[in-house]
């Protein structure tokens, strides 16, 4: 067995401190600027909202399970789908990905913290308070006016539904202002990740030797700087309309409802890539380790990501084919939408190329990634179908679109995220997640996912529009909706098992050790969980797999890169 050491320390030799009181622990987390603690707070915060958003989704599905159901009122139904969409995108997906980026990027580049640690804390708290403000609308939405409650305008908040005439009280303002506040936090984190990656890499880590996760988070953060700003601008314009009598989106006073759509989707579609690119990053780290081979086509993977970053900024209006654009605009957005599938396809081939000929270990992180690969491919294919304007004219705003979108978000993003949890949980906590519970979680969730979202395409094809409160019997939709709803319960049980697994394993799990997966990137060189300073001495790397070089000094990577 080869045995080398990086100048990276474990916790050996440290004096044992007395157990802190809970108030000391609370204070420590409240004032921390440590990227790892902030990363964990992002992740825990997102997991709480995942459960909340999941409950909202369950309410929606129970309401739609059978025709003419009255499980909730139409008003509550509208609030639920608005809060579900907003929560899942802004307060689950983005924070959890930021959490992983916060935790992993400095460790992977051999740094002790982010470039701007205080800005990092500020950004997290803005995101956190933004989410709390949104949910405060349940209590304070009625306000002094006795009108409104939680937002009910959908997560797109299309004009003119958001105008004062159609949205009384402050419900829409809660939506606008909470996203505005969390948007500032998002911009702060994006700036921080870009600065950290560009200026904090350890000696020897050129851009060409960065782990793919770091590269992909750099691209994601760069994209965010371009995409969050139009949304923030649109939110400010909407506030001017609602508070100061402006007319940006008031069609009867020279404004334009379509302008809101453009602003929203210039943010909204790249946002899908902002969410999926970090998941590509997880898969790009996990698949090689469990295939026991280096990533196939590293430079092409980087180039494809950068390409996706650029092209995805030019596809937004494929969400707007049905508003009646000119044939030139339709043609442009069809072409760009189809074009963005090319680099994405390259990535799928590269992951398959990585697995090809490898000694694949079917551990839980790998299983989630395999699920991701299959489902993301299907999601991409239905995306290409919807990217063709004539097809979209037929199925736009139907449940087919909802099924496609959830195939991306759940089948793609959530599967990769679960893979990331199983892969890095040992590093973050020092404990392994329970394997048996993990298998239950995987298979139940996989079954529930396919039961829900495979069959959700069918009522869409049969003409069922999205966001309807209920429907007539005899249209052929009922049986499919019932199956879809039953699938949700499998997923809910699986997620609860996952939450239980994390809590149980944190307290009683098997000790993980520094490097339980025999992996190759720098975070596995330090102890689990890592010390505050990450590395006692900043490491120096010579290849993309520094730990491989140490473990195999007779056959290091740097000879071939």
């Amino acid at each position, binding site marked *: *067995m*080869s*045995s*080398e*050491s*990086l*100048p*990276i*320390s*474990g*916790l*050996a*030799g*440290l004096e044992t401190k007395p157990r802190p009181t809970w108030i000391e622990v609370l204070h*420590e987390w*409240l*004032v921390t*600027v*440590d990227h790892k603690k902030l990363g964990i707070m992002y992740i825990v915060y997102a997991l709480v909202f995942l459960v909340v958003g999941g409950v909202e989704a369950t309410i929606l599905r129970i309401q739609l399970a059978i025709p003419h159901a009255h499980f909730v009122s139409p008003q509550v139904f509208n609030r639920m789908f608005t809060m579900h969409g907003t929560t899942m995108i802004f307060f689950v997906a983005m924070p959890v990905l930021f959490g992983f980026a916060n935790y992993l990027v400095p460790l992977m580049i051999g740094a*002790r*913290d982010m470039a701007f640690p*205080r800005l990092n804390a*500020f950004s997290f*708290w*803005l995101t956190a*308070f933004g989410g709390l*403000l949104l949910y405060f609308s349940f209590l*304070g939405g009625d*306000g002094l006016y006795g009108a409104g409650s939680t937002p009910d305008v959908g997560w797109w908040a299309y004009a003119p539904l958001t105008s004062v005439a159609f949205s009384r009280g*402050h419900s829409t303002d809660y939506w606008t*202002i909470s996203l*505005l*506040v969390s948007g500032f*936090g998002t911009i702060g984190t994006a700036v921080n990740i870009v600065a950290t990656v560009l200026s904090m890499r350890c000696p020897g880590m050129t851009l060409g030797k960065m782990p793919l996760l770091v590269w992909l988070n750099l691209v994601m953060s760069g994209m965010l700087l371009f995409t969050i700003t139009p949304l923030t601008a649109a939110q400010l314009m909407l506030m001017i309309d609602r508070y100061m009598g402006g007319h940006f989106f008031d069609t009867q006073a020279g404004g334009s409802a379509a302008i809101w759509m453009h602003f929203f989707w210039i943010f909204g579609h790249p946002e899908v890539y902002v969410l999926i690119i970090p998941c590509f990053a997880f898969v790009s780290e996990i698949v090689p380790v469990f295939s*026991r*081979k*280096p990533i*196939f*086509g590293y430079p092409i993977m980087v180039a494809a990501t950068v390409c996706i970053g650029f092209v995805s900024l030019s596809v937004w209006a494929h969400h707007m084919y049905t508003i009646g654009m000119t044939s030139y605009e339709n043609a442009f957005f069809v072409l760009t939408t189809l074009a963005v599938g090319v680099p994405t396809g390259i990535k799928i081939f590269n992951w398959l*190329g990585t697995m090809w*000929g490898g000694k694949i270990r079917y551990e839980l992180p790998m299983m989630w990634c395999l699920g991701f690969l299959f489902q993301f491919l299907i999601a991409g294919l239905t995306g290409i179908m919807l990217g063709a304007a004539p097809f979209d004219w037929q199925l736009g705003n139907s449940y087919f679109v909802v099924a496609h979108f959830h195939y991306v978000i759940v089948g793609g993003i959530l599967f990769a995220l679960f893979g990331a949890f199983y892969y890095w949980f040992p590093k973050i906590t020092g404990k392994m997640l329970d394997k048996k519970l993990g298998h239950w979680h995987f298979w139940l969730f996989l079954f529930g996912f396919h039961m829900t979202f495979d069959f959700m395409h069918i009522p869409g094809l049969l003409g069922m529009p999205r966001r309807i409160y209920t429907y007539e019997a005899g249209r052929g939709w009922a049986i499919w909706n019932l199956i879809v709803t039953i699938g949700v319960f499998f997923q809910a049980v699986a997620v609860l098992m996952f939450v239980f697994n994390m809590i149980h394993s944190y307290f009683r799990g098997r000790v993980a050790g*520094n*490097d339980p997966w*025999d992996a190759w990137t720098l975070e596995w*060189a330090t*102890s689990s969980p890592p*010390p505050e*300073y990450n590395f*006692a*001495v900043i490491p120096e790397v*010579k290849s993309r797999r520094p*730990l491989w070089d*140490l*473990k*195999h000094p007779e*056959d290091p*990577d*740097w*000879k*071939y890169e």
Partner: protein
Amino acid sequence: MRPHETHPKDQVELPAPTAWPVILAFGLTLVFAGLLTSAAVSALGAVLTLAGCVGWFRQVLPVQQHEMVPAPHVAEAAPVVTETPDVARMKVFRDFHRARIPIEIYPAAAGVKGGLAGSVAMAVLACLHGVISHGSIWFPINLLAAIVFQNSLALPESYINSFHPLLLLVASLLHIVTSILVGLLYGVMLPMFPRRPIILGGLIAPVLWSGLLYTSLGIINPLLDQRIEWSWFVASQIGFGVVAGLVVVRQQRVKTRQFMPLAVLAGIEAPGILEEKDERSEEK
């Protein structure tokens, strides 16, 4: 701790924890939340925001505040080891069957040269057609430009037979760009037609292409379809194909990496297949 101040080797300098970011974030949120609730909430938020800004500035100015964290000595570092030190090699079959992909191709420059030469041949034939059939060399040029300026086809014959600088510019651009692209395509395709490439590339391909256009142009662009004389069209296409093909096949071929095994081409397993670098050269 001031920057550059020396500190013990078993301690690491980290940014000091601070409450000001959370206070500032809470204050800003309250400023906005006041728009939803009461001006008093905004006022409280403004106070907290101000306090947060001042506190934060005092944290980082004139020098950032740090804390010293004890760290074990480097010598106590945990070793990086693996349970699986053996490295397996992928098998590579060097006599891989590669019959369908050429092992020699023409460089891109050959395609460009062929395309340009073909464009001249096509232009000569087209202008000849204009002079013989319509008494004007501008007829085929204006016809080509009508792909962009479709309305010009509805104008009288005298307009299409006369000189128009803009139409000449557009037609020239279309002709040259398309010719170069088709030439590049020839450069790629001809090595794949080992038997009589000139007949395939110069005759059969133009006839097939013309047939496709003949059947579809009436739907795509009926006005243009009415103006085209197909015998001359086919002749100019063949002229292009033969000349471009002849120029391309006279260029020097270059070897591809197709003879190498797929694993090498795909970069699947670099160690053991690709040439290894020397350690000293790496250090340089």
